[in-house]
């Protein structure tokens, strides 16, 4: 799984950090930071949840 974040779209809600704290963080302005763009299998459900719940549709997942 590859994780991409569209930072200009991010609205700094922090929902992704709540859903998958090992994979996402926020900078001081609240904008999303991807900590691990090829996260471990064990986090994949959480990452999918984060992408689904992001209120700005700013997180994109690809297979590889």
């Amino acid at each position: 799984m590859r994780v991409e974040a569209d930072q200009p779209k991010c609205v700094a809600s922090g929902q992704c950090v709540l859903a998958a704290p090992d994979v996402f963080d926020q900078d001081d302005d609240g904008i999303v930071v991807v900590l691990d763009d090829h996260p471990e299998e064990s986090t994949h459900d959480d990452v999918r949840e984060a992408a689904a719940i992001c209120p700005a549709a700013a997180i994109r997942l690809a297979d590889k």
Partner: protein
Amino acid sequence: MTDRRPLRRIVIAGASAAGLSAAETLRREGFEGALTLIGREPHLPYDRPPLSKQVLTGTWPAERTALRRPEDIDALDLELRLGTAAAALSPAARTVTLADGTETGYDALIVATGVRPRRLPWCGTPGVHVLRDLPDALALRQRLTAGRRLVVVGAGFLGSEVAAAARTLDVAVTLVEPAPTPLAHLVGPDAGAFLTRLHRDNGVDLRLGTEVTGIVTAGGRATGVRLADGTLLPADDVLVAIGSEPNTAWLRDSGLRLFDGVLCDEYSAAAPDVYAAGDVARWHNPLFGTDMRVEHRTNAAEQGMAAARNLLHPERAAPFAPVPYFWSDQHGTRIQAYGCLRGHDEAQVVEGDPADGRFLVAYRTGPALTGALAVGMPPKALRRWRAAIAARTQWRSPADSLVA
């Protein structure tokens, strides 16, 4: 639950944030049956928050509001019925009748039809706008050119954001609000005073404590509004932003309980195999021990998800007990809030100072910390308060309410 009918077809009414989230969750959780998504608008699901922000200022083209790429929608294998509203529901027959007269059966249904703007009698007059859908935003954007005069009726989040967007385009903006500050009942006096200053510093002519009583027209077009004290405010355009009403007219004869929204239990269930999610749903939030209906973007996605899961797995249904969250962007300032601010008994600035544009207000309702609103604070500070609200922290002095 043992004699539950097999789930062959699930119908979702409403193809926006909540409906899309429900559809994605059903597929992610392995539902392989037929999935029908009915939407009144002809568009694939798009996002509304940018409509009063980037779309209105012209920084984003309309296409950028798409919630998913067409290929992501295709991958959900939906029967898309866009451009047709759901017109009636019969829970006994388990059918939804569409506006085009066709009927679709279902084994389970999710209602996600959202809200529409509350209108005033003269809202149909040319020159008077409301803002909910993409065409509303495009029509308004086209009118907002430098030097034009816009009167905004209502300084809630929507009216305030439109006023701010219009100022970036050098439109002369008058914002009229009956309360003593913008969002007075929601955010309290300190945050309200901050928002008042923010508007005025950015050149908005903010009229507080007065009401719009009617419009003035010439040649059938609005040319201004009249205030309660008789003042006439000339305008090229008027935006009415005085709140919304749930889209439940199509459910009138359904037997579902309608009370400012579709009334649901704590599982977001409105009737057997009928769920509701998003702006249209009024449900019992056990975290706050009260029924609520919230018009926030994050809630639409979260409740769509929760309703879909409870629908698929009623045997392990989980109460939907979120800490509501919203943000609003006004004049380049981002406001964020967690919890329930409405109806609070006390509001106190607990971090920072509104004079510096960086502060956090905590809200008490009864004995508990129920909300927090922040401007210009780092995300970690805000997340601590969210956790304290989720933990139902008792309000002592608010600063020690924080579980550090």
